[in-house]
Each structure stands twice: as C-alpha cells, then as structure tokens.
C-alpha cells in the first residue's frame, strides 16, 4: 500500500508517554481534533552532488600507496570514510576522504555522498584512473533524498479558561522505498511534536513507513519542521475554539524554566519562549494598511523550539574529538572533521581558538577536512557544530595556551566530548533529557493573498531567535534568513508531484525555489540567553529557522481569507479551493 496512512511496512516506531491522556480528556471542557499534512521538499543546494575518486592514496612525500582517495562535495567526511571502508574492504588508513569546497548541503550531503563516493571509487579502481562523477541537476533531483512528507493528527484537551490538559499526537512519516536516516528523523519529529509548551498529559505515537517513492532522508530540521507545523497550527485551532487570542494562549502554555517537556526533561536554563515572543511582537508594527481588492493582507505567528546537538545519548556515543596544534613557527592549527558548508564553521572555529589562545585571527588556520589528517569530530549536522565542536575547540585551545607557557612548541592538544553527568536519557522508554539544550524562535509572517488567483505572497518575515550567544552576529543572521526562506518555499511554492512513485517535476525548470523577487523582506532579531555549556553561551541554530515560518504563513493566510489550510505547500490551487468551498 503506497498511501502513507495505510502503509503496512514499518521502518520504526516511537512512543512517548507522560501523565495520563485519558484522565486529561475526562477533565476537559473541549477536545479539539485536527489532522495536518506536509509535503516533500528538495534541499536544492546549488552545487549538485559530485566526487572525484582516485584509485590510490598519497602519503607524505607524494608516494602512491594502496587505497582509495575521494574528494567530494559533502558534509560528513567520516560518514563517507566508513562507507568506503565497508564497500571496498579498506582499512582506516587506506580510505581517505577529503571535503572539497561545498556549494550547500542542508542535510542533502549528509548521507547521499557516500553513494556517489562508492560509485566513483568502484569505477576508479576498475579503470585504474581517477574518476570524476558529478550529477547533473536532473539526476540530482530525480535520485537524491527529500524531506519526509507526513500526516500528523492531534487531539488536544483544554479547560474553558485555556488550561492545557492533554495532547494526543499521532505522526506518520513517509520513508520511501528504502530506509535511510529515517528512524533518526522520526525521533526528532516525535520529540518536538508537542511544541514549545508545557502539558501534564502527553502521548506521542510516531511511525515511519515504507512506500513506493524514492527514499526520503535528512533535510535541515530533520523531522521537527513537520511535527512543529502541526503543533503550532493546533494552538491556533484550540484558540479559535476557545475564542481566545492565540498569542495569549501561547503565553499560558509556553515552557518556562522548571517545566518539563513531553519526554520528562526538566528545563533548567536558557528557556526563552517568552523572550522571543516578546521580542518578535515588539519588532512589528501593529497595523497594516488596508489592501485593495482582490488582495487581502494577513498576519500569522508561530513559536517553536529546536533541540541543539544529537538526540539523547547521541553525543556520548559519538564522542567527537578535535585537536588544536601549536606549530613551531608560532601559528596554530585547528583539526576537526566539521565542514564549512556556508554556515560559517571556518570563521567561528578560528574566532573561538584565537580568542582562547590570546592570538590574532591571522595566526590560526583550519586544517583541511581530510580524514588522513583530522580526528573525527562527528558529522556536520544536528545544529551541533558551533555548540558541541566549538566548545571542544575552545577547551583544547585554552589548555594549549596554558601548556605553551611551560613547554616549547610544537604542541598538540586533543579533546573528546564527555557527556555531563547531569544529562540522562533512556533510549528504551524515550524518557529524559532529549537534548542538552533548546534554541527558541518566534516568527511573524505577513502575506498578501490574491483572492482571484489564490496566489500567496509572503511579504515580510520577522523572526526573533534565542541562539544563546551569537558568535558572529552577521553569520547568525545569515543562517536565520536563509533557513527562513527555505521554509517559506516549503510553505508556498515548493511542491513535488508524484506519478507511479516517481517525481514528475524533477528539473529546475519545474521544481521552483524562491528567487530574489519572490523572497520576503526578512528581519532577524537576535536574543541572547546564554547556555552554560556552549562556547560563550552559544546554542545551535542551523535548523531552527526551518521550523517557524510554515505555520506562521498558514495562520496568516487564515487571517487574510478566513479559511484554514491543513497542509503545505499552500499552492494557489489549494488556497482557491479552500476559499470557494467555504
């Protein structure tokens, strides 16, 4: 069965339980039910997948030895390294993976480059020559993994005064025909499904199923945008049922220090739902000019959180390692496998190290992301690079500075992640500290809806974000702006039509992403509520901006037209159909 809600092949399931949902519903004045759907999305990094494989590896003096070297456009050198070792029966030393300058990733170059690398390596070994394998855009669109579509149902029980009694949530994600990172995506989707709210009784059941489409996989946000889309619209529907403002309802429900999440995690620090809500509301002008028919204006808001770093025991299992080396000539080198994919890794790592070493930025360089040179600091995913790896670099550089006072250069200091004792996670029951900390965002979207064509134009997006500490404010804003536009695209124009399990619009001429003309004015407000274990208080924010805009846009369309859409993308056809059936 290829309809996601009826598919019987299951990749993984998760159940999260807190309190007693039945008791919550029994005490309720209202129980509100609603089902939401989210669509496929292509990462659309502008540089397609590509790798060059050499049927040998080079050692220090240019000598060629048995092995395989792959240079590629990729996010996670050690993922590809593991894949090559397994596919070609190579040892750790024989497989060498080097990241080339990479023209965007967004999760699309987390897993898939292993396939490209193996194909290129097999050809290179057979031919005895280097092989370059670059996907053209059509092939990239047709073959690579997309954001998981899904169906998410909510039952929310409340008292007349808005008191939240229970949330009962059911998530189905469409994994496609083969299992990728789908179970991990499902995990993040489930953990974020209750939204940024405090509820005594929660049940979240999630399953990822097989269908007849190409497989779906990692994409910025990793399941959270899907489940937060439903959670945020649910707040709107409950508020409407209660005749209350949804902003007031959010204030009543939002997580605060001392509250517990759906997994029972007690939030002890850097909890910023209220801070970002206030900051976003302050930043927008209260009223908009009345529109000329057939255009109608509307405004919507969303409040989201996003766990920074790997889920649960992920960081402990990974135990990422970095090194900082002081060279004899007085310069310093940072050695990590964390890649620059446009998000600013190179800059902030050098900033953090230079600061800790007490030297100028020009004295610090980042070693190439080459598995024969750098330790495995883990993959460049999960909003973990600045917060987890950045902190390790800071610690290594600090120790190096102290040792350099007593010992002569060259020196090298390695640091490996150690999970703080205060973090507890039970994988079997899904109880405990799902993430070390969360980043928070409130997004306000303004739209123009053309009532004759159904076309939605997002004119303005304002997002207030708590990133703990902005290590580089311009780059932090850049992450928020770019992620926000990706979310605007997902919410409005990015649609993949399916036929017999294949994509119909698998060309850039037919799969559209926002251009400079489509893009709204995007404004970012950085709020800083530091996290005690982040470098200077920083938390991860790479994925967070993908979460908020879609529900805010759907709420804005409702504000403009009076109709609720339960899905994205809000294409003109769907908006028109909803308006006319009303």
């Amino acid at each position, binding site marked *: 069965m290829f309809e996601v809600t009826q598919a019987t092949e299951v990749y993984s399931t998760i159940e999260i339980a807190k309190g007693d949902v039945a008791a919550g519903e029994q005490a309720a004045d209202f129980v509100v039910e609603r089902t939401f759907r989210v669509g496929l999305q292509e990462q659309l*990094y502008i540089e397609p997948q590509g790798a060059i494989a050499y049927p040998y590896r080079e050692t220090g003096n240019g000598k060629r030895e048995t092995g395989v070297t792959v240079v590629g456009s990729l996010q996670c050198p050690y993922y590809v390294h593991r894949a090559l070792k397994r596919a070609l029966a190579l040892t750790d030393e024989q497989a060498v993976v080097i990241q080339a300058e990479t023209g965007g990733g967004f999760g699309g170059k987390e897993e898939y480059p292993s396939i490209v690398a193996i194909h290129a390596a097999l050809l290179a070994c057979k031919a005895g020559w280097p092989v370059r394998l670059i996907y053209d855009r059509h092939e990239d669109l047709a073959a690579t993994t997309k954001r998981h579509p899904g169906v998410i149902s909510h039952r929310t029980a409340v008292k007349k005064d808005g008191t939240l009694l229970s949330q009962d949530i059911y998530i189905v994600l469409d994994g496609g025909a083969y299992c990728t990172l789908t179970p991990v995506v499902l995990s993040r989707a489930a953990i974020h499904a209750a939204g940024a709210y405090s509820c005594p009784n929660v049940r979240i059941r999630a399953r990822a199923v097989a269908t007849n489409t190409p497989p779906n996989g990692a994409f910025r946000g990793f399941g959270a945008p899907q489940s937060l889309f439903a959670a945020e619209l649910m707040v709107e529907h409950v508020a409407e049922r209660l005749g209350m403002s949804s902003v007031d309802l959010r204030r009543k429900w939002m997580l605060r220090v001392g509250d517990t999440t759906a997994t029972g995690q007690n939030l002890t620090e850097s909890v910023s739902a209220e801070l970002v809500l206030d900051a976003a509301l302050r930043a927008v002008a209260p009223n908009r000019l009345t529109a000329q028919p057939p255009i109608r204006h509307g405004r919507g808001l969303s409040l989201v959180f996003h766990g920074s770093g790997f889920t649960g025991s992920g960081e402990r299992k990974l135990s990422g390692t970095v090194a900082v080396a002081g060279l004899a000539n007085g310069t310093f080198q940072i050695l990590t496998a964390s890649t620059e994919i446009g998000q600013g890794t190179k800059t902030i790592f050098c900033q953090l190290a230079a600061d800790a070493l007490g030297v100028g930025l020009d004295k610090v360089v980042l070693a190439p992301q080459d598995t024969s040179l750098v330790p495995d600091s883990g993959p460049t995913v999960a909003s973990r690079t600045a917060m987890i790896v950045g902190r390790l670099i800071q610690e290594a550089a600090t120790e190096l500075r102290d040792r350099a006072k007593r010992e002569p250069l060259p020196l090298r200091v390695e640091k490996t992640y150690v999970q703080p004792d205060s973090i507890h996670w039970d994988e079997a029951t899904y109880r405990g500290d799902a993430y070390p900390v969360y980043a928070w965002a409130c997004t306000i979207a303004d739209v123009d809806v053309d009532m004759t064509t159904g076309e939605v134009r997002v004119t303005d997006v304002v997002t207030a974000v708590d990133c703990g500490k902005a290590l580089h404010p311009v780059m932090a804003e850049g992450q928020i*702006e*770019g992620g926000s536009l990706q979310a605007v695209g997902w919410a409005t124009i990015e649609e993949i039509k399916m036929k017999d399990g294949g994509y119909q619009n698998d060309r850039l001429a037919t799969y559209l992403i926002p*251009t*400079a003309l489509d*893009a709204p004015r995007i404004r970012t407000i950085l709020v800083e509520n530091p996290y005690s274990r982040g470098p200077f208080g920083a938390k991860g924010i790479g994925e967070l901006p993908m979460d908020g805009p879609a529900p805010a846009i759907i709420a804005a369309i409702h504000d403009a037209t009076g109709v609720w859409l339960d899905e994205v993308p809000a294409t003109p056809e769907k908006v028109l159909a909803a308006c006319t059936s009303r």
Partner: protein
Amino acid sequence: MHFTLNGRAVSFEGAGSRRLLDVLREDLRQTGTKEGCGEGECGACSVLIDGEVVNSCLVAAGQVEGCDVTTVEGLATNGGLSPLQRAFIERGAAQCGICTPGMLLAAHVLLQRTRRPNAAAVREALAGNLCRCTGYTKIIEAVLSCAT
C-alpha cells in the same frame, strides 16, 4: 576560436558547439564560473558577453567568436577585490559561495547602469540568480551599499 576573456585575448581549439561554460572551466581553467543546473535556471554560470549577463551553460562557444567575455575573475583589478566583492564579504552576502560569482556579475551590471538602484531594482536584477543559503537579504544589502 578567438575571443577576449577579462581583457586578454584567448583562443581555443575544438568544436564550437561545446558549452561556453565548459570551455571556460576546462580549457581555460577559469573555474570561478559554476554549474548549478545546466539548463538556464540557476544563474551560477552567469558571465558577461559584451556587457550583458548571460547563462554560459546555454551558449555555444562558437557564438562568442570576437566577443568580450567577462567572468568573476575579471572583477578584481590588480589583485584587489572590487568594492562590490568587498561588500559581499563584509555583509555576509556569500555563505556557501556557489551563487556568488553569478550574483556579483549580475549586480555589477546593475550598478553600471543604475547608480542608485532601490531594493526592488536589485531584486529584479538578481532574479535570474538563485541562492539557497542567504535568503537574499544580505546580498541585497551588499549591493545597495555600493550605490554611488
């Protein structure tokens, strides 16, 4: 085949039907020009032919015989970056950087023709160049900061 590339006379042997993009990257080793789609949609391959922004993935090399071709490598003068390039760096207008060469060329032409463009004119001029990283905000700011 002969043409001018960034002010210097260049020539190459081979079929005139090859894509200008490939001749630039492979034969002439000017790899600043990028390929994002090969079908005229993304603008990563933008170059200037006699001052007009063109997608070099759609141009047969034979068509530029005798023309003046400018790639991103031609924007810097005497090894120094142009004010526009510096503005892109300072304002965070390049993230992964693959759209940047095309963006710079499209913006360069706009600023040559309109000394004080407004934000709407900048958006219009850059509409043929896709960026997936920045949300365009900082690119537009960088271009506006170079209005004279």
